């Protein structure tokens, strides 16, 4: 399941279609397409402005494995059964809801974010470090892309990195090293830091 049909979610959904054995991709977003989305989300057209994003995306990719969900992913969201959740949102409450559900279903989720020329990606799994281990109990909202701006090709790179860690998880899930990937678009480079293999004290 991909939460967010925006700058990271839309290329991610396209990339997931390369997985031959994937039966279903849920894509959840309660936003509507805005003009300022178009440079980073080139699948949407001017004619899509005002339409529900997840529905417009599902239609644009034209693959019936992709199913739109047009309500917000929050506390009250009813989750379908899934095997992996991608965070392609830009806010912490949605990420907290994703993590809560991932731990409940005992599945991993993939954190992804992009601002300006930089991106971050991490696969978080039950029993490993959680969002709070990474960013503290009350992560400051930080600068979101509508305040700080973002470069569209960086969001593309972040979607690719999120896909890459999911592919790695699928192929070698049992020997997993927890990492935070950092991307720098200005330098065109990606590197990672190893997350310390300590017990998460927050109930992951």
């Amino acid at each position: 399941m991909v939460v967010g049909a925006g700058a990271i979610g839309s290329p991610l959904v396209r990339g997931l279609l390369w997985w031959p054995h994937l039966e279903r991709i849920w894509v959840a977003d309660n936003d509507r397409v805005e003009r300022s989305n178009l440079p980073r989300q080139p699948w949407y057209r001017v004619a899509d402005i005002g339409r529900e994003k997840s529905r417009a995306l599902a239609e644009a990719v034209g693959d019936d494995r992709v199913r739109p969900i047009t309500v917000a992913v929050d506390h009250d969201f009813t989750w379908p059964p899934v095997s992996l959740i991608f965070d392609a949102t830009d806010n912490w409450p949605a990420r907290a809801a994703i993590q809560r559900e991932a731990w409940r279903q005992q599945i991993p989720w993939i954190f992804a974010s992009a601002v300006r020329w930089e991106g971050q990606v991490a696969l978080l799994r039950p029993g490993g470090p959680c969002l709070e281990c990474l960013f503290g109990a009350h992560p400051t909202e930080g600068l979101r892309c509508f305040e700080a701006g973002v470069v569209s090709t960086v969001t593309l790179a972040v979607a690719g990195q999120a896909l890459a860690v999911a592919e790695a998880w699928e192929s070698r899930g049992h020997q997993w090293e927890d990492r935070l990937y950092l991307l720098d678009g200005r330098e065109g480079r990606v590197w990672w830091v190893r997350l310390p293999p300590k017990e998460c004290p927050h109930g992951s």
Partner: protein
Amino acid sequence: MDLDRDQMDLYSRQMLVDEIGFDGQLFILATPVHVFGPDPWRGWATQYLAAAGFSVSETPHEHVKVLIGDAASWEVTNLPQRGEGLRDLGLGLSKLLAEWMRQVKGGDIRNANSLGPGE
């Protein structure tokens, strides 16, 4: 050259990035880009660069090569059709854009591109 209200709205997020800004957006809108490469990468690169505001033309080719104006280029061989390939395409295009932006704003290639802002 100026931007109308729709264009201001359209490009607002990328103009907020310091290295781009309003003047950088004008350079983007005045600059041709050519994308060489195989599917699916040529299509991805073309979509993103055109959406950013460049005038993009494309040619099928064995390897990915992107030229911005006649001053900056990036090329890569054998991108794998999976996450890593998508990431490397995004990073390569980002670095190319950053370098080209530094050049045009530094004035290095102003004369090579006769359509710069205010001209």
